[in-house]
């Protein structure tokens, strides 16, 4: 039995649905992981230990354990303590937290690398520490690490396939459904791979665009 890609259009609706869920997962997780990354970074640079420690603890937890396990814990584990999340929400939360921790590491070192004179100039005008962070330091830090953050976001898009295991009908799971119906694994896995690749091309373009915009002042 050779390869026959002509079967794919029959399952186009299913793959399209999967693609849209993957896009939804990724867009939400990119947003929350970047926002979370900034919050984790700033919190871990706080001068107060009672602010630093909880965030550092969560960061350790999420960096030191597999994403798959985190998905299980958030989806199946939290039910036991009465928090019944739907699979999509659990997937967004797990991806967001997991990547927020990686992003925060990148953003943290970028914040520390911003020239000390920027702090001094901000403070000399009467801005508070957090005001200076928000308007002066963080925007420059982010602009300096846009490429690195972009790579993380491309990884995020790919890792979103793990969410299939908790039953979110995203691209990988929809390909599996098509396979169990058609008994054509090779064709549909390749089709899914091509779609991931195309989505990543789009994401890469968005990252380049963000890079250009964030670096327009240089």
């Amino acid at each position, binding site marked *: 039995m050779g390869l026959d890609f002509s079967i794919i259009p029959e399952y186009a609706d299913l793959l399209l649905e999967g693609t849209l869920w993957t896009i939804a997962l990724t867009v939400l997780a990119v947003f929350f992981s970047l926002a979370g990354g900034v919050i984790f970074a700033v919190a871990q640079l706080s001068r107060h230990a009672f602010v630093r420690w909880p965030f550092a603890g969560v960061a350790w937890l999420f960096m030191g354990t597999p994403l798959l396990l985190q998905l299980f814990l958030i989806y199946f584990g939290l039910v036991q303590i009465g928090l019944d999340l739907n699979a999509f929400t659990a997937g967004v939360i797990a991806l967001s937290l997991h990547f927020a921790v990686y992003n925060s590491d990148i953003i943290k070192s970028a914040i520390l690398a911003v020239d000390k004179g920027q702090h001094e100039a901000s403070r000399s*005008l*009467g801005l508070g520490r957090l005001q200076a962070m928000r*308007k002066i330091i963080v925007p420059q830090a982010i602009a300096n690490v846009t490429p690195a953050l972009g790579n993380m976001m491309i990884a995020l898009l790919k890792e979103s396939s793990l969410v299939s295991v908790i039953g979110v009908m995203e691209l990988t799971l929809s390909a599996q459904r098509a396979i169990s119906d058609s008994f054509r694994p090779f064709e549909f896995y390749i089709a899914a791979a091509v779609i991931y690749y195309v989505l990543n091309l789009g994401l890469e373009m968005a990252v380049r665009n963000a890079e250009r915009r964030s670096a327009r*002042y240089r």
Partner: protein
Amino acid sequence: MSEPIVKIRGLKKNFGDLQVLKGIDMDIEPGHIVALIGASGSGKSTLLRTINQLEDVTDGQIWFDGDLVNKDLPHRAREKHLNQLRQNIGMVFQHFNLFPHLTALENVTLAPIMLGRMNKHEAVDQGHALLEKVGLGDRAGYFPSQLSGGQKQRVAIARSLAMKPKVMLFDEVTSALDPELVGEVNRVMKQLAQEHMTMIIVTHDLRFAEDVSDHVVFMADGYVVEAGTPGQVFRNPKEERTKAFLHQVFDE
């Protein structure tokens, strides 16, 4: 004589074991231009930076406008007190420290808007006026990377002026500039002097100091060695160390 706007008594500052300021007393009258001169390492920049508490002090007192600057307060209250204080003390740095991701105009409008001094419209109007005043009215939309050193420093001066400070601190503001760009910055400072802005200027440019200041303070080794009018200090120094310093500088 009016009450000094900046009053310093017994000021000491250590960096670890290193004593940088060893007991400074100083009064700065409103509207006066004070030049702090001395060799590198004499403590003049550190002294300037203690006035707005970019450096905290080890011992002694600083008053600004009748208010004790280095009050002993809990952290949060101290931050609030310093933010309030710093809004009235402008500072210009050797390396400009302009915000590179903001345009010249945004650099000038950021603080007044963010700190609620004025609404956006007023801040923009004032920003254009200040850029005009420093001769950069046509550069409002430029980013710092598109400006020369002298232009950057003039934007930095405009940025400080936007908070309508009562005192301006200048920390070697022409030291990092190409020689041909020094004049344009000095001209802006002179113009401020003529408008009776109170200015404290740390400088290596002794001719400028003599030209613009009402009062010159010569520092060495963390002490004020000699202070007086430019005529006294430059033309008729009493202390040996002052004479030696002036000799060394003017012979070069």
